[in-house]
């Protein structure tokens, strides 16, 4: 097992490096921009400010943008560099002022392929300076939310690994697919010039999305992984196939969804609700509750139901499971369907929390792998615990380390825990002999 973990990790890391390298190429093609939302804080609400003028100056660029009815403005700058962004205070509507009237001009660096957000704070400062403890509490809550979302996706990843041995790099795209399909269905803006419609209630859209995700999981196993397995494709070869599939899907989604970031209309700009020092939107609280209920249901199913026990039996020993009368292919099919639906749900919740783009799933793939490895490869409960640890750690660590380094921190803790407990947090040491 130790060796298996090490080998799996090493191959995973090297493969990720390739994928990341290739991923950078995609973003490059998109071009750089500076954008922002202008919103006035009024009695705890944020009201969009329309018609304000913002000028961006820099190498070869001198352009003025006007905010739209959502308060959004964008300037395509076209290349990396440092730009000066100035807000025309006279263009602000009556009664709207900059929080700090001297800060009407900002210098912003834009790196390659970045869409750089720039915010001008309006209205009176309502923000009370938070104590470190309050910040820690807030970040813990956000970390828990993030961890639960990772857990939803990672449990499926872990079950697929456990029952088939496949290290599925395209699992991140299942997450993205969930988020994007839900956006398509809920807004009615379908891709590929399919006829659009007015959109449907978000919960209906989410249910439809999960059904589609189930179908996608079925197709994954029935059309690709099942046939490969029956032909005796090696695990490394299968992993490479999954990397290819991941890239293919990601480019396809880039084409279909475009490179921009969007939000579900139903959850745009929800007002926060305070619980003690913690402020989260109602959607966040509901997301967490849904994730907890679903994860508990999965745990119950694995521990108590016949199919759940069969799933663990197949993870232990497929040949013996078959010899016991378990339909191994059927169990694996079910795992694929359930795993894809869980990933889709994770995608929807992630989309609600941080907006949707064509690689949100890919961005958490590394964290999913870290969580699965951390918890103990192939144990679904390990994946659950590992995800919460990773989600919390990544989020809370921004208290002390720069936000850009937070994912690196997750890998750091992964390495440390594996050095102490090579089988992972919940993994059992392989029987000796």
């Amino acid at each position: 097992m130790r060796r298996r973990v090490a080998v799996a990790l090493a191959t995973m890391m090297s493969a990720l490096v390739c994928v990341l390298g290739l991923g950078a190429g995609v973003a490059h093609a998109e071009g750089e921009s500076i954008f922002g939302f202008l919103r006035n804080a009024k009695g705890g609400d944020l009201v969009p400010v329309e018609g304000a003028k913002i000028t961006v100056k820099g190498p070869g660029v001198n352009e003025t943008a006007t905010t739209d009815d959502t308060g959004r403005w964008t300037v395509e700058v076209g290349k990396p560099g440092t730009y000066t962004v100035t807000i025309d205070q006279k263009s602000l509507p009556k009664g709207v002022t900059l929080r700090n009237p001297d800060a009407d001009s900002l210098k912003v660096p834009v790196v390659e392929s970045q869409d750089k957000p720039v915010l001008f704070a309006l209205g009176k400062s309502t923000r009370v300076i938070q104590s470190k403890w309050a910040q820690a509490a807030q970040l813990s809550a956000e970390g828990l939310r993030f961890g639960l979302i990772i857990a939803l996706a990672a449990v499926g990843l872990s079950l697929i690994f456990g029952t088939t041995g496949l290290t599925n790099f395209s699992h991140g795209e299942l997450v993205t697919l969930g988020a994007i399909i839900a956006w398509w269905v809920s807004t009615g803006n379908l891709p590929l010039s399919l006829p659009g419609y007015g959109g449907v209630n978000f919960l209906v859209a989410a249910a439809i999305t999960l059904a589609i995700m189930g179908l996608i999981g079925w197709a994954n196993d029935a059309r690709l992984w099942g046939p490969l397995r029956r032909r005796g494709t090696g695990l490394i070869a299968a992993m490479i196939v999954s990397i290819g599939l991941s890239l293919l899907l990601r480019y396809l989604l880039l084409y279909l969804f475009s490179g921009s970031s969007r939000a579900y209309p139903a959850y745009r700009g929800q007002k926060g609700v305070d619980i003690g020092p913690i402020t989260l939107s109602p959607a966040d609280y509901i997301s967490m509750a849904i994730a907890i209920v679903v994860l508990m249901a999965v745990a119950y199913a694995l521990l108590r139901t016949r199919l759940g026990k069969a799933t663990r039996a197949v993870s232990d020993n497929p040949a013996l499971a078959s010899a016991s009368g378990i339909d191994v292919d059927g169990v694996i099919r079910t795992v694929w369907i359930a795993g894809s639906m869980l990933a889709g749900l994770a995608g929807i919740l992630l989309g609600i929390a941080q907006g949707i783009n064509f690689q949100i799933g890919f961005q958490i793939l590394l964290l999913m792998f870290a969580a699965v490895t951390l918890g103990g490869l192939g144990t679904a409960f390990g994946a659950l615990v590992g995800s919460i640890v990773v989600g919390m750690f990544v989020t809370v660590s921004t208290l002390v380390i720069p936000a850009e380094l937070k994912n690196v921190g997750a890998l750091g803790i992964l390495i440390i825990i594996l050095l102490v407990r090579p089988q992972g947090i919940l993994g059992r040491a392989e029987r000796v002999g």
Partner: protein
Amino acid sequence: MTTQQGSDDRPRTDSGTEAGADSGTDRGVHERAAGNALLRADEVIAGYVPGVNILNGCDFYVDDGELVGIIGPNGAGKSTLLKAIFGLIKVSSGTITLRGEDITGQKANQLVTKGVGFVPQTNNVFPSLTIEENLQMGVFQAPKKFKQSFEFVTGLFPALGDRRAQRAGSLSGGERQMVAMGRALMMEPSVLLLDEPSAGLSPALQDEVFVRTRQINRAGVSVIMVEQNARRCLQICDRGYVLDQGRNAYTASGKDLSNDPKVIELYLGTLAKA
């Protein structure tokens, strides 16, 4: 009666027409005896990779209520024969029938419903499941049977009932063997395939396994038992087969085989003469 195949001094390596001619007489015997056997294999050819046959035309049968032992040197293909019967590897030619029904190529999980049970030689428990869950997996296709079968199996192996919540991965080799046998018995099979059930056990526990196997057999289950412990196996068997290089070299009653000078010479070893 001992039927022999091949030349007189050695069970033959299978090659060319010579073997074909010799096996004619043997097949005749098999044909007559296996008339309405419970489970039979005819001229089975099978292997793990295409082009490399491990079984080269194996004949074999077991009658209702019989206890049949299979012995033979390491690598003879004993485990492979059981796996071929049980649908775990592909049979490239020949037929396997159960009560007259052709079951060649059927999947293991289908055979379980038809009353065939199998205990593999290695990795024969689910280590992360508890003893009780291991036994539950045995009746996966008929969960209603659990209660009754559980009582039967824990009656046979009381230790399993006492430690039902323990993970099978933490058991000793002998305890695992009990779990493995118990799991295969849960479906109340009519024929049980055992691959070296006594391997790695202390002499006392080996005796225990043979006694239990006999007990299971007396309860009406036909048993096919592969054993390295040839002498003891032949003592309790109704009939035995000696397998060599993927074909059955000798078949006779257990007693006759263990007294046959050639078998002693080649498989039982000189100690057996004592």
